[in-house]
């Protein structure tokens, strides 16, 4: 049970981290001057935004997972390179990352062109402008939307139980099957997720407040 709770936290943390990274890099690549880079990022967004996360999980675990090379394991058999936790982390990161790219784009587009032009005039390179000027300003605009998406991501980690990641929901399911205490477990589950997401929301709101610039956005 407590193990399941930690797996949920671990999975959420890993996915939060990578999805934000994907979002930042993706949004940067989207502003690229190369046509094919932009097309590639847009293709990725369409693919992951337009398919259900459960289908993606199944696809990664059962389709891609079986195509990868296998490794000899300690019980004398052959097992796939990546386990269910790794696939869940990859799949959910890409899923939330696709949304994050669009969220960051909306933030970037809200940064006045005159600001970036001023930075350019001061001799900043493209990457420097993105890292030191655009992104910090864009972050402030994008935070409420990002907040939303990350809350959704934490809740979406429950889907990982379909590919047997022993998370909170998975453990609870086994407990209510063994002990037939469905009602109690349902109440517990609801409160546990409420608590977990509550912490995330509180943290994000704090961050939002601390990044506020008076008179901007």
């Amino acid at each position, binding site marked *: 049970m407590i193990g399941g709770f930690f797996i949920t936290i671990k999975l959420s943390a890993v996915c939060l981290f990578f999805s934000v990274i994907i979002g930042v890099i993706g949004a940067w690549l989207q502003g690229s001057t190369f046509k094919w880079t932009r097309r590639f990022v847009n293709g990725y967004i369409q693919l992951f935004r337009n398919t259900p996360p459960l289908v993606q999980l199944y696809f990664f675990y*059962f389709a891609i*997972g*079986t195509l990868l090379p*296998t490794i000899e*394991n300690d*019980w*004398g*058999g*052959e*097992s*796939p390179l990546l*386990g*269910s936790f790794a696939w869940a982390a990859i799949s959910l990161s890409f899923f939330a990352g696709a949304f994050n790219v669009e969220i960051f784009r909306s933030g970037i587009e809200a940064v006045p062109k005159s600001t970036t032009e001023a930075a350019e005039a001061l001799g900043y390179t493209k990457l420097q402008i993105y890292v030191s000027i655009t992104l910090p300003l864009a972050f402030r605009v994008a935070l409420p939307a990002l907040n939303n998406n990350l809350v959704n991501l934490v809740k979406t980690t429950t889907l990982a*139980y*379909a*590919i*047997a990641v022993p998370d909170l929901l*998975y453990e609870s*399911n*086994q407990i209510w*099957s*063994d*002990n*037939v205490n*469905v009602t109690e477990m349902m109440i517990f589950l609801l409160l546990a997720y409420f608590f977990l997401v509550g912490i995330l929301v509180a943290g994000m709101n704090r961050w939002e407040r601390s990044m506020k610039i008076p008179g901007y956005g």
Partner: protein
Amino acid sequence: MKLKTLKTIAAACVIAGIGMSTASADILDTIKERGKLIVGVKADYVPYGFLDTSGAIIGIEPELAKDVADKLGVEIEYVPVVSSNRMQFLEQGKVDLMIATMTDKPDRRKVVNIVDPNYYSSGTNVLSLKKLGFKNWDDLDGKPVCGIQGAFYNKATSQQYGAKIVAFKGTAEAYAALKSGNCAAFVYDDSAIVAKTQDDAWSDYEMPLPTIDDAPWGLAVQLGEDAFATLMSEMIVDWHKTGRILELETKYGVANTPFAEAMHEKHK
């Protein structure tokens, strides 16, 4: 706006009230009025309840359910259930009757009305690669073992024998995970594994361990539906007496189980 919400809530309460009042009436009357018996069966458990090529649910348990519908003179509707939701479906009245490979357990009897006598029995075993050469249950210690979410033997396999259970929603996922090497074995009912080892695609696999936990299966109706339970009890005795279960086992290619034979002897 607020008034509208209140009205909606009131309407919902009324509807819920109607639903509850029909549930408390005798279910047999409800079934006859409806002209249809709704039965929860497995749809992923060859040969007890599975899908044929047209997508219809067939198998030993659906046929038994059909006998009940014929006896009542009504149509039949199958609702596919899985181990983790079958009792809830029955409790909530989504199905009238549940025949879904459920092991008869005392704590389950508190939630649903499991009808005596038991209609079937099976034990727990594993399906694993022949080359792994498992001999007894302790060999599973520390190894990942596929299972089905909500099955009771997950607990025993992990706590007594130290296996790491990797549980999936349905058997198809578990078989796929076993085949791709995500687990060393698949813990499941021996009756289903026997059927699987006869499949050509699974010729590298075997059922190597001694069967444990041989336990009776129970079909169930909602708590309080005593008239229906009495009827079902008579049906089960009749199935044993006429050898109906043995006949269905043969029809679906399962070796006659000792339990079914013993019950047939007893009630003959």
